[in-house]
């Protein structure tokens, strides 16, 4: 990764990114480069600054210091779906988009929500709202898709379905993805590259090369899981 020149062949490049809240330094001279089409999972303990980094990349935090360059468009799906409650699902997808309505319909179809296009967001189930939020991000055909724990509120079954959906959509549209998650297995199943944020920096950065679809008992994933859990300061389970 280090061989890559900043600004060349990257969708986002961050150098010395620092963010403090009062005395508390959350991001401490963090460096990160994201290549086009890369699927990255970002792990880290609660409060380690994952959301802070994501907000900086999304341009939502004006108080960060350091170099931050993002080329191309960015789309965000937040942890809570954040649909605009007074706009029907379709209108949420097309909000701020000047593209033909067919694109929005196509995006809804991709996440399996065609029938709910005219529903009010408050009537959607948690998983439906999450998928609508994903469609709203994807329809913008971003170069960089930021996902902040978008699956954490879902039940295990819906989660599996949406995991598959995200990988499919990523394979089709090829945005770079930065997925924040608490779940090591989720990271290993989905990403090309797994990062661990600790002490305000990227403390661990490893590629995942296993072919998709992946299974938890793939030997590469088992080794990586142990490494990641160690990096996260969790003792690996005694089994296996």
């Amino acid at each position, binding site marked *: 990764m280090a061989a890559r020149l900043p600004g060349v062949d990257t969708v986002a490049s961050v150098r010395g990114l620092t963010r403090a809240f009062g005395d508390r330094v959350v991001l401490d001279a963090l460096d990160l480069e994201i290549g086009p089409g890369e699927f990255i999972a970002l792990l880290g303990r609660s409060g380690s600054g994952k959301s802070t980094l994501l907000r900086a990349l999304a341009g939502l935090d004006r108080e960060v210091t350091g170099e931050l360059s993002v080329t191309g468009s960015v789309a965000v799906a937040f942890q809570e779906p*954040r649909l605009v409650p*007074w706009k029907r699902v379709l209108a949420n997808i097309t909000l*701020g988009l000047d593209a033909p309505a067919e694109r929005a319909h196509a995006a809804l179809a991709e996440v399996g929500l065609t029938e709910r296009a005219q529903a*009010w967001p*408050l009537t959607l189930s948690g998983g439906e709202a999450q998928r609508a939020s994903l469609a*709203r991000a994807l329809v913008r055909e971003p170069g960089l898709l930021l996902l902040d724990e978008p699956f954490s509120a879902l039940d295990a079954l819906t989660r599996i379905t949406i995991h598959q959906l995200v990988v499919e959509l990523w394979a089709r549209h090829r945005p770079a993805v930065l997925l924040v998650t608490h779940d090591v297995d989720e990271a290993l199943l989905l990403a090309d590259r797994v990062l661990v944020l600790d002490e305000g920096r990227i403390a661990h950065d490893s590629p995942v090369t296993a072919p998709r679809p992946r299974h938890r008992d793939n030997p590469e994933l088992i080794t990586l899981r142990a490494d990641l859990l160690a990096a996260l300061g969790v003792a690996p389970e005694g089994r296996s």
Partner: protein
Amino acid sequence: MSVIELEAPADVRPRSRPQPARTWGKAWQRWLSPVAVLAIWQIASSTGLLPPRLLAAPATIAATAANLIETGILPTAVGVSLQRVLLGFAAGAAAGILLALVAGLSRPGENAVDPLMQMLRALPFFGLIPLFILWFGIGETPKVLLVALAVAFPLYLNTFAGIRGVDGKLAEVAHTLKLGRAALIRHIVLPGALPQTLVGLRQSLGVAWLALIVAEQVNATAGLGYMINDAREFLRTDVIVVGLLVYSALGLLTDSLVRLLERRALSWRRGFLG
């Protein structure tokens, strides 16, 4: 308080348990006591226990109402009063909402407008009537202005609070969706403030009628208030009661109009009812 008031009916109204028999029984029981009071009132009047000088009999009031409508006195009076309230309401609502937008959408605007409004709001505006008479005479202007003033404050306060209460997370969404400032205001801020504005609208219509009644009591040569005052001179309690009934009917009418507006504009909240 406002949120509860608006949202409660959506979840509470039990649609799933239609019990027509019991509902009818309840409705019937609810009419019992008003009818009884009317009957006692009528008996008291007929037997001379309640002299018409103090309060006219229900039957007399009904006859007077019919007569006032036939002769065109009541329609004319209502027309004059309605005009006052509509003019005052339009002016007050425009001013209240405009000021709320100025204060709500920018910090300098807030600094310029809000302290003034908070100070003026403390004034007992019915106490302004003597000043208004000195400034504007006893014509239509002071009456319309009093209504406008009464309307402007609830709308200002609620719309301002509504704008400031818009979820900051949605503003972030707007930013990530690349909405410009105008689009942010149009798609996020104004619709987000609407529920609170409608609460203000209902409050302001309530005080609009109150302000009209007070203004018309003081000095009027036409309108409902004039009709009532004139009736007092001649001890016509029947006419007074008709006037009061018309005031309350008009108040109820405007209130139900706002409810209708609420139901249509806030249907996204009631999505659960389909």
